[in-house]
């Protein structure tokens, strides 16, 4: 009897000590790793971008050995992959999305979780435009990690030298330069009309300068009609370039068939076939001909129109959180630091909206120019077509892309273009 009792006691003590041991072991592991867990990330970055982002993730995992991040690239199919995953009830922990419209959609459906915990950091390192961009219904849902500056014009140094012109600061100078370039024998503009979206970027850059940022916001939300006089003014301004068909490389038909690489190569080749192309900071990576920065090609900011302040229209890939876990929070907080952004900046092909990233982190002079302009811009607005419903602003062959391609074909039709834009926008925003 007593023996049994003793043995039971011993057993009980043994169990107690074992649990105690286990709990101390647990405590030590917690002390060792502040956070732990496995994270899955579905992102837009593929190829070299994926490799560079992996370097950022590796640095994070080194700091937090308890966390394992598995990155899967969905490339351009991010909207499809994520929509399907959300519908199927199995989203990844985190994602990076190119379309702010999709972020808003997910936020409205409560598919993504607020990330207000990162707000203090963003207030420190980002200009207010970026916080507004990520906010939906009063809560912060997205943080842009990789930005893009689309207010740049790339030019052939040789073509400018042959014509004896300098990078213009104003629209008037730009048009004067274009005339001189034509006389020198090089068409001034190479336009990627085949893709459609670069035309929307040109429109947005002209619009934010001729109509101002507040009208830009109204138009982006479709609280201003596309038949508004301000839109027509912008179209008329664009027609000063589109209408000068002799000054477009390949003429209108050539421009409408040119895709991104064609339009960039025309400027980057030797001898240059065209002098300038109005496209974002991704231009050097799009070229398939060899050209040297600074001596072969160079960049200047989109010029001011009638005294407009320096403004940047851009884009960016937004980081969102589907599952609120300490590990996910830790990763987002890490990505908000200049340290994380600097890792990718050093590897190239990256512009950070983070003001804390030192200019010296960028490997080449040109990225330094475009990236600093992006992070420091007083007036920054997100690419309007990316904010619009995809049926209007994000689909090849329809909506704004198609209508602006038609406008490139027939730049005299200002009123018709405006009303076509309005009816397409009205249909797309209704849904």
């Amino acid at each position, binding site marked *: 009897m007593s023996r049994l009792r003793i043995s039971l006691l011993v057993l009980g003590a043994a169990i107690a000590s074992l649990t105690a041991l286990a709990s101390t072991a647990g405590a030590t592991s917690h002390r060792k790793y502040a956070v732990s867990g496995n994270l899955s990330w579905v992102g837009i970055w593929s190829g070299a971008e994926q490799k560079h982002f992996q370097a950022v993730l590796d640095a994070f995992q080194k700091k937090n050995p308890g966390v394992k991040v598995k990155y899967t690239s969905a490339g351009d199919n991010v909207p499809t992959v994520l929509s399907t995953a959300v519908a199927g009830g199995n989203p990844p922990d985190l994602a990076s999305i190119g379309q702010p419209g999709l972020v808003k959609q997910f936020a409205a459906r409560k598919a993504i979780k607020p990330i207000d915990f990162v707000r203090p950091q963003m207030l420190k390192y980002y200009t207010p435009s970026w916080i507004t961009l990520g906010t939906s219904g009063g809560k912060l849902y997205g943080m842009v990690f990789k930005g893009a500056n689309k207010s740049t014009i790339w030019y052939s140094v040789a073509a400018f030298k042959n014509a004896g012109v300098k990078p213009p600061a104003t629209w008037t100078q730009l048009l004067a330069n274009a005339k001189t370039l034509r006389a020198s*024998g090089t068409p001034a503009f190479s336009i990627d009309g085949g893709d459609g979206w670069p035309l929307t970027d040109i429109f947005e850059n002209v619009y934010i300068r001729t109509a101002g940022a507040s009208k830009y916001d109204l138009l982006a939300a479709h609280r201003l009609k596309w038949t508004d006089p301000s839109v027509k003014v912008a179209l008329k301004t664009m027609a000063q370039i589109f209408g000068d068909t002799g000054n477009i490389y390949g003429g209108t038909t050539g421009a409408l068939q040119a895709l991104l690489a064609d339009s960039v190569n025309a400027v980057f080749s030797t001898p240059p076939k065209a002098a300038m192309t109005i496209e974002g900071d991704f231009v050097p990576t799009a070229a398939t001909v060899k050209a040297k920065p600074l001596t072969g090609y160079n960049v200047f900011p989109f010029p001011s129109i009638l005294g407009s302040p320096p403004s940047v229209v851009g884009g960016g890939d937004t980081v969102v959180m589907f599952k609120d876990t300490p590990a996910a929070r830790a990763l987002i907080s890490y990505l908000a630091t200049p340290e994380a952004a600097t890792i990718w900046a050093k590897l190239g092909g990256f512009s950070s909206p983070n003001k804390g990233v030192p200019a010296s982190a960028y490997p080449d002079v040109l990225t330094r120019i475009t990236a600093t302009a992006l992070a420091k811009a007083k007036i920054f607005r997100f690419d309007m077509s990316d904010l619009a419903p995809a049926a209007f602003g994000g689909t090849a062959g329809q909506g704004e892309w198609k209508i602006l391609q038609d406008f490139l074909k027939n730049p005299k039709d200002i009123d018709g273009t405006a009303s076509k834009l309005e009816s397409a926008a009205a249909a797309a925003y209704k849904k």
Partner: protein
Amino acid sequence: MFLAPAVILLVVWILYPLVYTVWRSFYDRSGANFIWFDNYQTLFTTDTTRTAIRNNAVWVAVVPALVTAIGLVFAVLTERIRWGVAFKIAVFMPMAVSLFAAGVIWRIMYQQEPSRGALNAVIASVHDKVQPPGPLSDALPSGTQLTGTPATGIVLKTPVRPGSVALLPLTGIPPDQVPAGSVQAKQPTPQAGAITGAVWRDFKPGGGTPGKLEKEEVGLPDVTVELRDSSGKAIATTTTSGNGNFTFSDVKDGEYKTAIGSATFRQPYGGVAWLGSKLINPSIMIAYIWVWAGFAMVVVGAGLAAIPRDVLEAARTDGSTEWQVFRRVTVPLLAPVLSVVFITMLINVLKVFDIVLSVAPPSVQANANVIALAMWRTSFGGVNDFGLGSAIAVFLFLLVIPVLALNIRRFRREV
């Protein structure tokens, strides 16, 4: 019981997706709201989908008939020529290439710039033999003293008399296209009884003053200059030298005009816009027919081999011409085979997709749209409207059903 695996596969991969697609087509983009037939209404009222339906109708009307006809002609001809087998292999080869790859090949061949697109390169080489491009195809008149355009020829506004000087400034000439042997342009000296002048590149870095002959501006040699009388007829021509100067000597007194004819400015051939919005549909169809003609030829060829020769011989003995034999005997006997080819092509053409996607550049995809492409673009091409996409899929499904039924009935009859 032993049917179970097949039934399970059918249910999982065919029946469930089918029912779900129909079901989904009654919901809106978000999938939350049941909207009855709104998607179907959108389908028939939006421009993009209507273009797709119209294009698909053209495809159905043109392509199956053409493929069958071409297959028939090839099959009959290859029976008779000596290199029939080699020809058959060549025509059948495209079947080994995927439609998407075939589309990429044609997309490259269709490029407008003759230096990049094979088709236009051929046309351009012939065209430029007949009408060689001018030496200064990029040039434009400079200053205010010249009238006319490069297409019509450029004329100096003010008439000239013997002893006076004619200046013909041109711009728009890229530095690498300035002819060899050109040197600093020289201000021409007036000569009694002669008309002198200069043609030069009126441009120096920064632009210079238009119409004024300045330092750093070079003469344009070998330009043919015309001297025209008051009626506009060319009475003499001369060519310029390295410094751009030219002289018409021994000119009778009177008023003349100096001009540069349009031949100097003739553009090199620009190429046909195969991939432009006007030609894109025929262009894609040609590529598609190129791929499928081999299939039609082989199937028809097999049918041809099975035709009893004595019937043909009998017709010939009775005095029919070859055409009559073909028209009255061969074709009727081949009718079952021809209809197999035709119906197969009909089904293929109804769901044509990948070749349109790969041949048409994004800027004309709306013009080249077909139902299957519209379905894909609506569902996955950025709009991500699975509701409308499903509606298009259901519509396509309904279109294919009658043809399938026809085919099944034919199979039954044959069995």
